[in-house]
């Protein structure tokens, strides 16, 4: 192997892209060539120096500032219509007086386009204000809340006001499957389960 051939192969060697047999001619060449030996040592040193090059830490507060600026005044519930959501549907779910003596009803169905975030609106009608109610959501396979990744269970406490309470959920369906979305609303000793069938919108 001559110096020019060595120069053409040395990057692959340094990067670990050559097997033992392929490395052998380069090793042989180094034994007899002081110039390439120095070059090889320098290349290895450069690689080590680059790998060790530190970067400054992000300025404290920059992340929050940059995220807020990106969202700007659009952050908040009014942002939902501007999210380029393809469709929106309203589902009224009645919550009877002191919540939950609602007659059994078949689960309503919502159709979603695959891989297309859409806003599903749930309206909880409450006969009176409820402080500290707990709302739990359970998502079927292949359905995600935008921004929550694979998280399938979400629970939080919220206050319901008298009358209609709107919950807007940006959902995305990842496959042409159907499943059941379950929302459980609890307050004190009472609870009510709402079921929603989610199906893929027919193609065409």
């Amino acid at each position: 192997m001559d110096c020019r051939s060595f120069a053409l192969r040395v990057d692959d060697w340094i990067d670990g892209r050559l097997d033992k047999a392929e490395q052998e001619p380069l090793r042989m060449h180094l034994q007899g060539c002081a110039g390439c030996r120095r070059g090889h040592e320098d290349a290895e040193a450069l690689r080590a120096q680059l790998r060790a090059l530190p970067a400054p830490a992000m300025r404290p507060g920059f992340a929050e500032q940059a995220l807020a600026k990106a969202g700007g005044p659009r952050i908040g519930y009014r942002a939902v219509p501007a999210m380029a959501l393809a469709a929106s549907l309203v589902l009224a779910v009645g919550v009877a007086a002191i919540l939950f003596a609602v007659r059994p009803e078949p689960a309503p169905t919502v159709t979603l386009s695959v891989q297309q975030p859409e806003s599903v609106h749930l309206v909880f009608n409450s006969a009176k204000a409820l402080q500290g109610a707990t709302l739990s959501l359970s998502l079927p396979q292949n359905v995600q809340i935008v921004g929550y990744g694979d998280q399938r269970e979400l629970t939080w406490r919220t206050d319901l006001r008298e009358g209609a309470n709107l919950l807007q959920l940006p959902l995305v369906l990842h496959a042409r499957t159907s499943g059941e979305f379950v929302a459980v609303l609890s307050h004190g000793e009472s609870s009510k389960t709402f079921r929603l069938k989610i199906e893929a919108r027919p193609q065409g």
Partner: protein
Amino acid sequence: MVRVLSFHLARIVGTSFESLLRPHLDFLHRLAWRFTGSVADAEDLVQDLLLKLYPRRGELATVQQLRPWLAKVLYRQFVDLVRLRARSPGAGLADGQEEELETLPAEEAGPEQHAERGEWRERILAALAQLNPEQRAVVVMHDIEGYVLEELEGILQAPLGTLKSRLHRARQKLRAHLGMEPFAAGERVKR
């Protein structure tokens, strides 16, 4: 009158973009700094990226491998920024590297070692500043961040052969700038 369940709504809408991007911001900032060599430019680059992505946040949730996808978008922003500045007389990237060195993390080293390390950092940064944006990006992603070339085909949007040749030339230029031994008699540095 319809009342909005504001607590949950604020959480869903207000944090969905943040929860997707926040885990990657340190990485993006580091990458932007390595691309540009300047904290101010890095912050501008990351801010521009977030502004560009916010309207596409629904799409972000469907991206399977978000980090390399973000790196690809950041790289395109960086190349565009360099091209834009090249067309603006008097503007340039990678100014103020001395100032940036002061913000580097403290290390366990004596004054002499610290001075030596500071010196080679400066020299390396100055050498990186000599590279064109495509060369700099491949050195940053491969030699510094440790991505393999096959991964970089997607991120830097170039075939393997192009990346290998870009990396080879970039290293030649770095070695030449740092006064290191060239390979093969007559090895020439190409721009």
